[in-house]
């Protein structure tokens, strides 16, 4: 997270850390319901080394090759409330495209759900699209300015960006911003997610219900925090039906 601030303990109890078995974190995620993690699909396979490859051509991360840690705050040191969980099964979005990051979303079914408490709690699914220009909070243990990893969970508070503006901003770079994506950040850059934050939550508060809900998951961007380089997130509301079907949850 570029230009972020440390997250206060317990204010993001849905965030999940995807970590290699050697303890090396590599992505973020969010807890849904009692035993599901939503994250970015591109976290779960090796990076494509050429264009035009399909998911089946890529080495997928086996469910037993990584773990999920809930209740986490510090990046590498252990936390008193952390809970380490195994993954039972991985569900890629059927229309996920590893070359364009379309539908860059995956669901992880946990072998056993975490014990919910003040530091572990699921995020709600959206009931509708976020308001125009709503402020969202993006959290992660990814790189900061000067490429350093943080000690602890970081967060930024940024506005949602109009889809058309975002699409125009990336057009010169030949990057497609499709309907299943949502952008956030400032025009002049500054606060943004970055490598290592992928899959992590972009949330906002539903002031009527008094509940936070998941707007997007960190997906891609060009550089981090540069001017006119908005952060692009996988748009959860767009893929809610798929999420409901796979998890069997309504909300």
């Amino acid at each position, binding site marked *: 997270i570029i230009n972020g*601030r440390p997250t206060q303990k*317990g*204010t993001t109890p849905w965030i999940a850390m995807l970590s290699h078995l050697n303890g090396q974190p590599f992505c973020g995620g969010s807890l849904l*319901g009692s035993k599901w993690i939503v994250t970015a699909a591109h976290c779960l396979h090796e990076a494509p080394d050429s264009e035009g490859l399909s998911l089946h051509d890529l080495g997928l991360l086996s469910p037993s090759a990584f773990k999920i840690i809930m209740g986490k705050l510090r990046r590498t040191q252990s936390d008193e409330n952390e809970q380490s969980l195994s993954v039972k099964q991985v569900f890629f979005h059927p229309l996920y495209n590893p070359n364009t990051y379309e539908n860059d979303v995956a669901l992880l079914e946990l072998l056993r759900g975490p014990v*919910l*408490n003040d530091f572990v709690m699921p995020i*709600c699914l959206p009931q509708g699209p976020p308001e125009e220009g709503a*402020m969202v909070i993006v959290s992660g243990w990814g790189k900061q300015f000067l490429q350093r990893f943080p000690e602890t969970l970081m967060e930024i508070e940024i506005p949602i960006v109009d889809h058309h503006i975002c699409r125009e901003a990336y057009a010169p770079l030949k990057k497609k911003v499709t309907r299943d994506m949502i952008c956030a950040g400032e025009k002049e850059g500054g606060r943004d997610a970055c490598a290592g934050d992928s899959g992590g939550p972009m949330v906002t508060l539903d002031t009527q219900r008094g509940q*936070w809900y998941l707007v997007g998951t960190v997906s891609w961007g060009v550089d981090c925090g540069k001017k006119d380089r908005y952060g692009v997130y996988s748009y959860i509301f767009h893929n809610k039906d798929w999420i409901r079907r796979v998890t069997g949850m309504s909300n």
Partner: protein
Amino acid sequence: HIVELNNMFGQIQSPGYPDAYPSDSEVTWNITVPEGFRIKLYFMHFNLESSYLCEYDYVKVETEDQVLATFCGRETTDTEQTPGQEVVLSPGSFMSITFRSDFSDEERFTGFDAHYVAVDVDECTEREDEELSCDHYCHNYIGGYYCSCRFGYILHTDNRTCRVECSDNLFTQRTGMITSPDFPSPYPKSSECLYTIELEEGFMISLQFEDIFDIEDHPEVSCPYDYIKIKAGPKVLGPFCGEKAPEPINTQSHSVQILFRSDNSGENRGWRLSYRATGNECPKLQPPVHGKIEPLQTTYSFKDQVLISCDTGYKVLKDNVEMDTFQMECLKDGTWSSKIPTCKIADCGAPAELENGVVTFSTRNNLTTYKSEIRYSCQRPYYKMLHNITGVYTCSAQGVWMNEVLGRSQPTCLPVCGIPKFSRNLLAR
């Protein structure tokens, strides 16, 4: 001189016809036609010497046992009779015609020319003799007739009377009514009816004849025609007939056979009886606490059954087995098939654990019996109850924890989402 004639028709003429007949002659023609026919005789010509009461010459027509006519002369006078246009009919299938002329004839008499023909006898319309007439329906045909019977009847081997098939009446109910066939219309003739009342050993059958009792009898001889007999075990009662019904009969047996026989004549209305089977009485029963006995009777006897059931919320407990109802039967030796069971209050048992929830008992010392209440709640604030129900479950009469919304389904604790205990100091301006 006798002539035997067996044809169905024929001609008979006096000797020498059409010339004068000789004197002092006698010819007899015996005509026999098949059964079912009679003979019709008529004259085309008749001219005999007349005499007072035909004592000289005559033609006599007779059957085996009666003279049908005696003719003589040329025309009928008060002392002589000629056939004229009349025909003579024989009652049966035989007719004998005798022509006789005495020794002297003053004049030439040309005698007679007669013809006979067999004609069918319509037994159906002519039968007077009840002994021979059809019982129900008569069908005449040329040369004979046959009888048939109403629906439900069978023609007896005498081909005349109609009987019913009534030899396989089996009664197994504990009470019943038995009557002679077609009661109260006259019973069929030539019938041999057998009514069997067969009950389980332990029952005693008693019979009671009711209202009409009318079986053909005889003033002197005991029931020579029709009668009813009752066989109960080794005992045989009867035969009964006449118009006075027998007194009520307690057969002391669980198997009774009633034989009713009718001969081939008579029109009597028959009989009706009711029977009842009773067995040994069993002792009176007390319903269990919180229970009841159905049907509730002052006395119970063999084969009577009772159903024990319990009040709502209680189950019948018998040999440590719970059931909704329990049936007992009064046995033939006057004892009950079982002891009265007790009624045990329905117990729902310890309520199932609720994942991510807890159960609390709302009755003293955690009762789990009928009407006790428990409350499921979810581990707040992390879980909340789906369907937003009260979580209150009551132990039902069926021994199942029931909620007014979910029925017997357990509630579900869903994770509360998006409401962290710690809220950040929002920096948004």
